[in-house]
């Protein structure tokens, strides 16, 4: 043991590492190193220190020198890859497949890094796309709602327009009435069944048109089971002119009834829905004679 310490402390191991020993000394140190772990450890420690010392004193050269040196070392087909050594796979040097495993280590780690970047980019794009899609979807939904609302509005206006057109026609009809002597206005007054009841019937004597003016109607609203029925009294006999409803929101000002050629009076009875063949006299609510 003491002898080994002396050997270690002699400084020969340092010279061995530096390379300043004879062939015999080299052999001696290597034999001792195999036998004695302390010698081996000492050599390792010296080697490590000298390696660090060399790194500390490193002098870098331009990359061109590397290119030149690699061109002198590597086979023809390798030269192009000197600039990027990581992609080197050399078909000229025929080694086992394992070769490529080690070769691939830096290559793949670089690739994996790239792939990670690509993946991150994809995820980011996906998130952005999803957000954009979601927002677009929302916008589309809003747009659809607006379109629906607009088309409803439009329909409403169209209905309104046609309603107004009809009303206008009816109003025109009414406006024309005074100038047309054939139009007779017949005011029906309430009977004892309901003295407050009243209504107006327009009758065109030559055209035989009969119309009920809903705006001037003063009848109590009928229920679902009953309807008012208009009758014309022709030579004492009631003639059915059709049924109508008494309600506030009627779309028409004038309701067209059946035509009649001649009548002395008009009467309204409350009948079952759809009307009756003969008027129920006790349900007569209004009546008015035609004045010539």
């Amino acid at each position, binding site marked *: 043991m003491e002898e080994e310490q002396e050997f270690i402390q002699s400084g020969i191991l340092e010279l061995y590492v530096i*390379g300043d020993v004879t062939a015999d000394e080299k052999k001696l140190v290597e034999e001792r190193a*195999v036998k004695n772990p302390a010698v081996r450890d000492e050599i390792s420690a010296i080697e490590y220190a000298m390696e660090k010392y060399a790194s500390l004193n490193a*002098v870098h050269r331009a990359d061109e020198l590397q290119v030149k040196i690699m061109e002198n070392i590597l086979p023809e087909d390798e030269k192009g890859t000197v600039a*990027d050594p990581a992609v080197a796979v050399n078909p000229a040097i025929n080694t086992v497949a394992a070769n490529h495993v080690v070769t691939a280590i830096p290559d793949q780690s670089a690739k994996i890094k790239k792939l990670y970047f690509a993946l991150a980019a994809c995820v980011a794009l996906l998130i952005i796309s999803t957000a954009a899609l979601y927002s677009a979807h929302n916008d589309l939904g809003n747009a659809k709602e607006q379109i629906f609302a607009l088309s409803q509005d439009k329909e409403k206006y169209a209905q309104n327009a046609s309603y107004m057109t009809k009303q206008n026609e009816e109003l025109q009809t009414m406006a024309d009435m005074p100038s047309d002597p054939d139009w007779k206005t017949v005011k029906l007054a309430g009977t004892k069944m309901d003295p407050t009841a009243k209504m107006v019937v327009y009758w065109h004597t030559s055209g035989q048109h009969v119309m009920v003016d809903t705006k001037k109607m003063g009848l109590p609203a009928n229920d679902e089971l009953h309807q008012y029925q208009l009758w014309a009294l022709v030579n004492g006999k009631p003639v059915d002119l059709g049924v109508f409803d008494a309600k506030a929101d009627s779309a028409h000002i004038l309701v067209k009834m059946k035509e009649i050629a001649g009548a002395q009076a008009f009467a309204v009875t409350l009948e079952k829905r759809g009307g009756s063949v003969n008027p129920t006299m006790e349900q007569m609510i209004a009546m008015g004679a035609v004045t010539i």
Partner: protein
Amino acid sequence: MARTKKISLSEEELVHALKRQDTIAIKALYDMYSAALFGVISRIIPNTEVAEDLLQETFIKIWNSGAYYDSSKGRLFTWMMNIARNLSIDKLRSKDFKNSNKNQDIENNVDFIDAQREVTFNADTLGLKEMVVALKPEYNDVLNMVYFRGYTHAEAAEELNLPLGTVKTRIRMAILELRKHFN
């Protein structure tokens, strides 16, 4: 031919790749160790052009004799460093190199080496300042003579007029200081 990245492999991977003559090995070795090797070469041979040629020779030798490297006998760097040092010292002592430096005393290696040193040694540019501070001058001088200037320890002993044992001890002490420093 833009260089994009430096290769770095573990020593074990490097040795395997080198023995298989996988080109990745020599590229990685260059990336990892060329500067440290050139640091030593350029101190022994300060002429940059010659030193660069020696660096090339070093790598060619590393590439061609990788099969002979025995990891049980030491670190890969030690083996490479010894190749670089041996080539540099051989060049230093070769006839053609001496002839190219005409003002040198051909017969006296030590004087010649010293002359080289006088012209080129500069602690600042060589990056030694830090270590000069860390090491005692008498240790540092001996270590640098042997490690960086191509002297054998016997030549150093002669030059410094010291017993061989003292030179060896001083080299050991210097390296012990380095070991402390790097641990």
